[in-house]
């Protein structure tokens, strides 16, 4: 994965618009967060292989970026995206990594279901 180039990422997001696409969306502090820091309120969310069709997708803000997808009846967004890649299967993988390289947020878009 490379650091986000907003204009290029915007082109990639546009290329998935108005298609049925599989979404992976995840936020995480890691399962050990409240073990290492007592009292830490550990929250996160994870969805994988949910199909959506967005009419508009946008890269917003300076790094870390916000990505928002407008659906006919709703929204998907992720905050904190720093890295991205279009992988060899044509899937758009976006991630927000902290300075140590630990994943904090992930948004992925694919025309085929994610495996595993």
């Amino acid at each position: 994965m490379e650091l986000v180039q907003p204009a290029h990422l915007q082109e990639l997001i546009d290329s998935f618009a108005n298609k049925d696409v599989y979404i992976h969306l995840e936020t995480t502090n890691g399962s050990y967060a409240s073990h290492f820091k007592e009292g830490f309120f550990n929250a996160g969310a994870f969805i994988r292989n949910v199909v959506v069709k967005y009419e508009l997708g946008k890269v917003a803000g300076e790094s870390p970026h916000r990505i928002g997808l407008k659906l006919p009846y709703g929204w998907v967004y992720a905050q904190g995206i720093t890295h991205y890649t279009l992988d060899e299967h044509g899937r758009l993988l976006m991630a927000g990594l902290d300075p140590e390289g630990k994943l904090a947020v992930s948004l992925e878009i694919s025309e085929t279901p994610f495996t595993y």
Partner: protein
Amino acid sequence: MKQERHVLVIFPHPDDEAFGVSGTISTYREMGIPVTYACLTLGEMGRNFGNPPFANRETLPQIRKQELLKAAEAMGIDDLRMMGLRDKTVEFENDEKMVKLVADLIEETQPSLVISFYPNLSVHPDHDATARAVVRAIRRMPESERPTLYTIAFAHNTREVLGDPDIIHHVEGAAKKKLATMNAHASQTVWMMQDMEKRLAEQDPEALKWLHYERFYTYRWDQDFE
């Protein structure tokens, strides 16, 4: 260390065995004791991608699978089972399905000793869910047929609840294999190992204690967790 007929190790993530059990596993193998390691997931949800990133959410499982194979080789394990569950979802699986998964492994391998986590004292939800399934599967066996169960627990209140570990294995003879196992899981351990190897070079007593001794709680059926 006691002679065993067969040792069955059950953990949910590819590196769960590395820190506190790999010396024990390696030593059993050196004693000629068969060891089966059932690893429930591929650690797909690991967070260490590196800076700059060497992995992404979709490539991490393959990387961790290769690391697991390498770790098994380092410990001399020739019966590694990858059970195909997904990281961070073990607690949401059907409880009876989990018990059956463990019961089937026990029935097939006929272990005299099972090694896993201690239920509800093992911090990660996958650890605790695995431990619950292991305890439930063994509890259903007639007392006379139950394998011994050694558990790892590391929640902050462990000592309060369980006291001190009753089993201490001296595994200095397997130190090289233990370090090789830790290093095999590079995607998860590379930062920790840089610090650890420096401390070992300085003969830091805590680091040496970690390398040379492994500690377990024998599961006590008279103090069952549920």
